[in-house]
């Protein structure tokens, strides 16, 4: 029977933002956290007879320092750290790239499909969020103040867009049995359970082509090993 290709059934959403250099991190975190808020559950606790119970997800408000904006994230320090690490690397890469300050960061949700030996496990993405970032340079404080507000307004729109997508109730992986749970969810965190995800980024020039020869990937499950 034909194998499902990795790109089947993977919906892709693209968001674009123009921000000042110092706003990159907060803007990325706002978007990524909002997506992960919707794509994380409480920890599963499997019991007898194939039943399971679900832990509780807490949430908290985050105020941005460089943007007139606030967002809600899942209360999980581990998750926040992981996102900050990825976003920090992205920001540094943007800064060091010497290009026009354009890049994109991607959040991909995937399922693992176990293969028989000698084939390695497949990672099949089912949802891909791409945030395209354009870094602007501003000349004075006046412009920065305006930028704070404008980016805040833009992020409000992005949150509404994300929620719209989430509300479509499109494909989500089937709830896994205990033996399968690590193929669907990231069970390494102690307090919440996001779907398996990867974050990667690219720095692009203004034509949209990648100028870095390596596309760096932060692979969540390999880090967890």
């Amino acid at each position: 029977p034909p194998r499902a290709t990795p790109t089947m059934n993977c919906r892709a959403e693209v968001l674009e933002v123009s921000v000042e250099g110092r706003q990159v991190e907060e803007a990325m975190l706002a978007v990524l956290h909002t997506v992960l808020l919707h794509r994380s559950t409480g920890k599963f606790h499997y019991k007898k007879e194939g039943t399971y119970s679900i832990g509780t997800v807490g949430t908290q408000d985050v105020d941005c320092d460089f943007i007139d904006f606030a967002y809600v994230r899942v209360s999980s320090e581990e998750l926040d750290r992981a996102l900050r690490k990825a976003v920090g690397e992205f920001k540094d890469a943007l800064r060091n790239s010497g290009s026009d300050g354009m890049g994109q960061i991607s959040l991909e949700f995937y399922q693992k499909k176990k293969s028989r030996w000698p084939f390695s496990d497949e990672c099949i993405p089912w949802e891909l969020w791409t945030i395209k970032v354009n870094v602007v340079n501003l000349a004075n404080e006046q412009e920065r103040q305006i930028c704070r507000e404008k980016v805040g307004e833009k992020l409000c729109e992005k949150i509404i867009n994300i929620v719209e997508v989430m509300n479509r109730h499109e494909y989500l992986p089937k709830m896994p049995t205990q033996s399968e749970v690590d193929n669907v969810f990231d069970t390494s965190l102690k307090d919440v359970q996001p779907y398996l995800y990867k974050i990667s980024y690219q720095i692009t020039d203004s034509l949209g082509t990648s100028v870095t020869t390596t596309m760096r990937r932060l692979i969540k499950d390999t880090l967890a090993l």
Partner: protein
Amino acid sequence: AMDTDLSSQDRKDLDKFIKFFALKTVQVIVQARLGEKICTRSSSSPTGSDWFNLAIKDIPEVTHEAKKALAGQLPAVGRSMCVEISLKTSEGDSMELEIWCLEMNEKCDKEIKVSYTVYNRLSLLLKSLLAITRVTPAYRLSRKQGHEYVILYRIYFGEVQLSGLGEGFQTVRVGTVGTPVGTITLSCAYRINLAFMSTRQFERTPPIMGIIIDHFVDRPYPSSSPMHPCNYRAGEDNGAVYPSVEDSQEVCTTSFSTSPPSQCVFTVTKAHFQTPPPVVTDTLKVPVMGLAFSHQLSSSRLSYQPAALGVGSADMGYPVLFAGGLNAAHPHQLIGPGKEGGVPPIPSQPAHGTQADQERICTPLDGVHYSAATPSSSEDTETVSNSSEGKCGSPHDLLETIFIRKVGAFVNKPINQVTMANLDIPFAMFAPKNVELEDNDPMVNPPDSPETESPLQGSLHSEGSSGSSTGNTHDDFVMIDFKPAFSKDDILPMDLGTFYREFQNPPQLSSLSIDIGAQSMAEDLDSLPEKLAVHEKNVKEFDAFVETLQ
């Protein structure tokens, strides 16, 4: 007839889910308008009282109000649960900001699994609600409440009433969940002509004349339920005790089964265990209210100066705009090409309240010298004190706003004081303090000539060419021939400079008398040393800049 396919257990579960979903919805909305940051903990072990696997605290009064409004009913077609969020100033004027609607329509999804899919989707919807409650304009307003205004909520059940939101309100949909008995929809309708709270927003919206007035209209429906402040803990203050939510509620312990999907084991137990009454976290402080309001309000109004910190030194101030047919120059229908490329959508959400504007006032402009008081302004000072005497004991509660137009360095007559009287117009504090010409906004119109990087430079060029005065004779200040930056405009058929000159001094209404608040003048003078100190700090920058002009 529609729900004969649903097992009775499923039906019971579904009703329970909808009921608790409604209660949690109200909690999320009200808590998002308390003015504080909310923080709850994740817990890997289910506690049994966290509906929808989300840690959402239950404020007892809020649950009480919600239950009262629902009166044992559930949202159904034509019977929606609405949470109305409004703003009330210390002077008693109130204005509806948002209506959150939990509605049910007839579109049924028979195939969907109640105990599993519906439950999880309701959980997802609550997460969306958490996110969306932070992005409507009322959120930022509510974070700044306490001194000049408070945010109130009111819950009602029945038909949705949107008329109090003013014209042109916007809607945002939070989400929908299909169930076998109908589709649950959660959405928010919010007022947008609070847009005048941000000067930036003002530039893109139609004139606000008449908009502030609409709140004077009597509410068509008398409040069937009283309004409550979002951050007022009635239970603590007057000793009224609301039954703790846990006392009588049924607690949901969810158990899901993975094997075979058709068997979803879902147990709901009636638990009467005692949990400590939900205590709102430390972050939810209860401000003491209602005390020094009038004092604070008046001082904030008087100190609230739309000192034109417009763009660069070509500061153009526009009179504070408020109701009553004031001819505020409204040149700002322009929509320039956005820097992101393409035409930017008109933002539907004004961003910020008075505090943002005040912060902006405090932000010093690079390279701008505010000239010290000159003889012309001392004349005005005299006028100030004279009329302030006249002001005392006036039967009208006249509050004045000094509007100072600051033109930058090298201008002979640096300060023009245009003063407008502010009749006791509510929400005047929210009116724009200064309105920048959008053309001077580099984000909207990127510089088209490389040598003029900032409007500051552009206008200083114009200062250099001192000469003929084309100022309006009403002014005290002399307008040097004005060459504004980015002055060529595709949209308007006239030169920006001409436009500015034409509209810079709208005629004042004869019905408004001009009195000047001495207090605001004094405060302005008080703030001068501070401003001078800041500019002194930046003196190297100024010097360097002046060098480039030589």
